[in-house]
């Protein structure tokens, strides 16, 4: 989404920079869940970047500055904007990961009293 061209797959030897050698499977788990977890986290990262790019547009507009791919690429939020972005980012992570924590808390609770905490 950046105006800057992202590096794509290059030569075969450069592809090694995309591989995590020695990556173990998660014991006992369906490998597809691990794959999906990676995809959801990566997607969340992209949404977070997109959200901040929109924020840059809005702030440049509010200051009646030119909104171009280059001006957004170079935009550095001030302290107030940085704090506001952190709040938005945190909210998104909490929202996306909520099912993960909810399921975990229920499961961990079983070992305390033998019952779900719900």
């Amino acid at each position, binding site marked *: 989404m950046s105006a800057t061209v992202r590096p794509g797959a290059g030569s075969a030897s450069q592809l090694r920079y995309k591989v995590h050698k020695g990556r173990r499977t*998660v*014991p*006992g788990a369906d490998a597809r869940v691990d794959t999906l977890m990676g995809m959801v986290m990566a997607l969340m990262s992209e949404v977070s970047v997109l959200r901040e790019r929109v924020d840059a547009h809005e702030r440049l507009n509010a200051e009646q500055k030119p909104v171009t791919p280059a001006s957004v690429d170079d935009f550095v939020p001030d302290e107030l904007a940085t704090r506001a972005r*952190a709040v938005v980012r945190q909210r998104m992570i909490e929202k996306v990961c909520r099912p993960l924590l909810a399921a975990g808390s229920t499961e961990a609770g079983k070992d305390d009293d033998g019952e779900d905490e719900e």
Partner: protein
Amino acid sequence: MPAPRIHPMMPANTHDETAEQMFVVALKSFLYTEMDPVVRKLTLGVADELGSASGERPSLQQLRRRLEDRPIYQNWISAMRSAQELMWQAAGDCVDRQRTELEELERSAPKLGTLRVDPNFVVPRYLAATDTHMMPGSYHFDAPGDEQGVRQGAVFDKAASLYSLGRQGGQMNDMRGQTVVAHVFEIYPDLQPQKILEMGCTVGNSLVAVSHAFPGSECTGIDVGASLLRYAHARASRLGVPLHFVQANAECTDFPDNSFDLVYSSAMLHETSAKALPRIMAECYRVLRPGGVMVHLEVPFRAETADAYDLVRADFETRFNNEPFWMGAVSADYGAIVKKAGFTDIHAGFSDAAFGPPQRDKVKGMFGNENKGGYKSWYIASARKPRS
């Protein structure tokens, strides 16, 4: 104006790259603060059950067997590792966008210190077998032609500043080096090292700090990757610090006997192996001059005092963050190993982390038996080569 660089060689960020990196930092923080406690609760519950049944402290193997079919444990591994992989991807993409510019910064850096790489260098098997910390290519892999570049060093420096969430001395990432200095000041106050060697120096962040602490000293760092060291050399030179970097294996360097006053490592030993560990100690002994001092800083954790969750967390680092010797390093009896290597004046314990350059008159009491936890303490094993 784009965001300023932290130091002259640090890869610069575009708007989106900063956003992507801040996301990784926030995600990691969230997992540490919100998900870890859930897994801790589960693990301690499982440990209680096992302990009640057997009357003994459960082993890691027993804990694993009970946890491995639990969805939360599986999800925790997946989520933590995904965040780590996203970190490397974010750092790698940022560096790859500006590789030409970084290579030019390296070529045009002031000619300070030296760099010696070995095209025939053989990476120790324990490092070649897996990508340490899940970093694609790890410390050592350079694609053909890239050994003349700085990619892996730049990626490591960028990611390391994110990995510790700024808790290892900000983006200069030099807290561990400062802590080594504090230890030398406190425990070996007579030592005035002229020649200093760091084993496993990566991008030289600790070595810059150590060099500043001992003005006039000649400092050398060794590591296993050519582009890693090329970046380290350019980084130090652009910071105005003349350092020497050599591609070498800490088990068998080519430095002459008795050539250093201080040899240290900073969180390197847990990247080695059970066989390598005594060899590295023997090599330290060989290259130190009589009366010289060796300091090894490690993660602030000891297996013998770990609770069940600490063990499971360490096991995550070992198996799912590709730190195969993590458990070995935190279980090793350094006192015995160091003594066997011939050293005297042996110290093993925890040092408070040094936040900034230590002052000689303010280091008393930093080293002792108290582990204050991650980024507040570091484990240290140190010793002196006998004077005669």
